[in-house]
């Protein structure tokens, strides 16, 4: 025993009694007095085994057994009885530690005694005012204290929820006994014997017990609340490292956590998986050198847990896989990285893809969603991530195709797009903040210029493509757009291509070369004539813009009707 601190330990055990026996042995070997409460539900032979295996240690007490239900007052009752038995048997104790059979002491009990001796009148119990929201995870907060909870949440969940809703609807508010303010905190604490005695021998204990009996999860509030009434100084942090996940379930500890636990310098950790033999063999472990006075630093461990909770709740943006398949608009990030879509540029500049590839630090693909082939940069048969260039495979799941490509490649993805391509991704990309659209409308018409197709076919194709692009522009102009969209009409673009190109490249936000030259432009002779022919055949071109140079003005043009306001 170090100094004046004499420690008693209340060990609450439910299952895995063999592990509990090991823990009891660790505590007892460190000089602590131990009282064990075994859940009345534990089978008799297991209890006999526990007692037999601890038979060589004297001074181990066994308190009256209660049937413990999760979140019920029975847990508090068990603690009370065990603590009373402990204090009665060892009246000289100065501190009592509440631990479970799966709480593993990480440091020698002597370290803990030294730590307690620093301020022998301090109570180590996490105790947070229940009105200050945010202590609880995945459950009720203030309502724990204002409603009645006669039912077991685990076994009678449906009725439990109904009853809670009913009380909410009826506006029931239980009165908290005078003189106490509800507090919450980790159920694992270390109180001074003085405080604990004061709680147990409080003249109003019957009243408090009655009140807490029908609150919810009183093991997280009974001692936490009453300690505020009796303690001199409270250190509102548990000495037991215990983290909960988003469901309020404690994290289990495994062999591979050993290093992290050692670095945490915490005294006790829960909850150890019963098969983690490595942990139990390794701990408690004295710190090397002069580390016995080191203070607990659980932050790194807590970061790991928080990271995992984030992964469970938010996941990795842009990932679609067997255990993460978000509904539309629940994606937490539709894609994993920024990407850019160039539409029309490759029609104006046939060499645009190569030229752009030389000007930006990005993977510049051709028409990834094209009709004939998935045009990966360099046209490999199998693209990044072993994605096939087969259009049939791509069109089986275009979402998976695009998101997978973006996620597997380290550099920014840039690709060409046109109304000729698969339009299935339009809404997805338009509502994705990672997307950038640079569109020159009506440019799809240029490849028709050089085609040798009969005019009827040209007209039919032009009608299809124009319809596709108009539908796409409807999406890009909708109020749900999250992508960055730059739309230029063909004539606007042709008026000042260099400036627009420069602006587009700057927007990519990757290292770019200055645009001092443009790739060779497609020969545009005959465009005005084609437009005129289309117009005359009844297909009004709506996307190329106004003001194309009229190469061969003919009298008939003057006969064309003006665009009406409605258009």
């Amino acid at each position, binding site marked *: 025993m170090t100094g004046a601190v004499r420690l008693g330990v209340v060990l609450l055990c439910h299952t895995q009694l063999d592990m509990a026996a090991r823990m009891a042995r660790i505590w007892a070997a460190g000089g602590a007095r131990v009282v064990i409460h075994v859940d009345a539900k534990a089978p008799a032979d297991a209890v006999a085994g526990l007692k037999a295996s601890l038979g060589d240690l004297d001074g181990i007490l066994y308190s009256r057994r209660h049937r413990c239900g999760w979140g019920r007052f029975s847990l508090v009752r068990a603690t009370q009885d065990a603590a009373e038995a402990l204090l009665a048997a060892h009246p000289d104790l100065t501190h009592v530690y509440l631990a479970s059979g799966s709480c593993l002491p990480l440091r020698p009990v002597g370290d803990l005694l030294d730590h307690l001796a620093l301020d022998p009148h301090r109570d180590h119990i996490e105790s947070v005012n229940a009105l200050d929201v945010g202590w609880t995870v995945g459950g009720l907060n203030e309502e724990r204290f204002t409603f009645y909870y006669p039912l077991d949440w685990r076994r009678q969940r449906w009725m439990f929820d109904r009853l809670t809703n009913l009380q909410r609807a009826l506006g029931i508010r239980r009165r908290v006994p005078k003189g106490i303010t509800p507090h919450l905190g980790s159920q694992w604490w270390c109180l001074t014997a003085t405080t604990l005695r004061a709680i147990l021998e409080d003249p109003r204990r019957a009243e408090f017990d009655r009140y807490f009996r029908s609150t919810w999860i009183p093991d997280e509030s009974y001692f936490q609340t009453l300690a505020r009434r009796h303690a001199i100084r409270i250190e509102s942090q548990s000495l037991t490292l215990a983290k909960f996940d988003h469901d309020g379930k404690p994290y289990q500890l495994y062999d591979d956590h050993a290093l992290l636990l050692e670095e945490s310098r915490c005294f006790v950790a829960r909850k150890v998986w*019963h098969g983690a033999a490595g942990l139990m063999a390794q701990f408690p472990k004295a710190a090397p050198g002069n580390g016995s006075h080191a203070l607990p630093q659980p932050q790194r461990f807590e970061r790991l847990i928080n990271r995992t909770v984030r*992964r*469970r*709740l938010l*996941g990795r943006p842009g990932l679609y896989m*067997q255990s993460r398949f978000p509904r539309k608009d629940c994606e937490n990030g539709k894609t994993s990285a920024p990407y850019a879509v160039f539409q029309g540029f490759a029609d104006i500049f046939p060499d645009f893809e190569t030229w752009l590839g030389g000007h930006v630090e990005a993977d510049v693909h051709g028409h990834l969603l094209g009709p004939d082939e998935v045009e990966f940069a360099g046209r490999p048969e199998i693209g990044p991530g072993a994605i096939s260039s*087969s259009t*049939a495979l791509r069109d089986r799941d275009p979402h998976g195709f695009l998101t997978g490509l973006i996620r597997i490649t380290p550099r920014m993805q840039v690709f060409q797009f046109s109304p000729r391509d698969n339009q299935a991704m339009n809404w997805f990309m338009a509502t994705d903040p990672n997307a950038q659209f640079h569109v020159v409308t009506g440019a799809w018409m240029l490849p028709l210029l050089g085609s040798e197709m009969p005019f009827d076919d040209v007209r039919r194709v032009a009608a299809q493509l124009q319809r596709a692009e108009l539908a796409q522009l409807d999406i890009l102009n909708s109020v749900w757009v999250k992508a960055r969209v730059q739309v230029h009409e063909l004539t606007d673009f042709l008026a000042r291509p260099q400036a627009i190109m420069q602006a587009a490249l700057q927007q990519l936000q990757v290292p770019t070369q200055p645009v001092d030259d443009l790739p060779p432009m497609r020969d545009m002779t005959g465009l005005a004539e084609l437009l005129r022919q289309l117009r005359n055949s009844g297909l009004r071109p709506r996307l190329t813009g106004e003001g194309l140079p009229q190469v061969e003005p003919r009298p008939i043009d003057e006969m064309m009707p003006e665009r009406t306001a409605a258009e």
Partner: protein
Amino acid sequence: MALKRHSLIPERLRRRAERQYLIARAVNRRRALKPVVDRTARIGKGAILAFVTLRNERERLPYFLDYYRRLGIDHFLFVNNDSDDGSGAYLRDQPDVSLWWTRASYKKSRFGMDWINWLLLRYGTGHWCLTVDPDEFLTYPHCDSRPLQALTSWLDGSGRTSFPAMLLDMYPQGDIEDTPYEEGGDPFAIASWFDPANYTISKNSYYGNLWIQGGPRTREFFRADPLAGPALNKIPLVKWHWRYAYVSSTHMLLPRQVNLVYDEDGGEQASGCLLHAKFLSTFARKSEEELDRRQHYADSQEYQAYHAGLRKGTNLWCSESREFRDWRQLEDLGLISRGNWA
């Protein structure tokens, strides 16, 4: 499927009828199974069981048993579908194996699932049950440091009854025939490559499962007809209840909620992978044999495609293939996830 999709009967009732049909069928087919050695009395409380159907897999068995024993399988229940290569004799002598023998048609027993459903019903209830083929090797987050019991007790604690593990096709660099597989050897020392990111997913709203396709088989053999490619989604690890039944291989089960192993609100559930050691030197012989028997799914269409492909000397490796390192690599690639199992 036994029942028509578009009917007036509510889906829930149709699913229930189908489940009852599958269970009845499994019970009915139990007579096809002749017990060879029954050590099921040794199955203890909380034991993790493995259920396997096999035919002529003798040279794979030593490594298979070794792998899963190390992982924490307590008892193996094998159905020997008329092997003639000594598989039965080998298994009979293993202390933790119970063995059944049958000559019945693999195809007519729904590709062995009737037999497995029966064994699961009879011996699996209340246990975590892993249903795999002899060429499937389960890997899951932390599998290098935590045994299968750690996973199942965590799943129990989280209130989950099933654990998904997508099939990941592994293949060697170079022709499949080049490096012969030696009995007892680690197949992934040879077939150590996989496709990282070419998987397609769609949701089957009737059964609730995800339908995953892709990987090297789809990329090489089903370029023109992606829907015919093999399904890769699997739910091999289930805390069995006698009311459950596998519907189609281990791709999906009934009741439906057992298939809901994925998160739809953007989060990630825990999941693993079944490393698929199919593409070894043993494959060509096997595919020829299976092609003769025509006992596989959809008239062995898959095997026909492989065989045509493999005859041409195709090799599955490409410059984008990744070499398998460990589960962390799979997690970084987004093929598996630790979910909230820190």
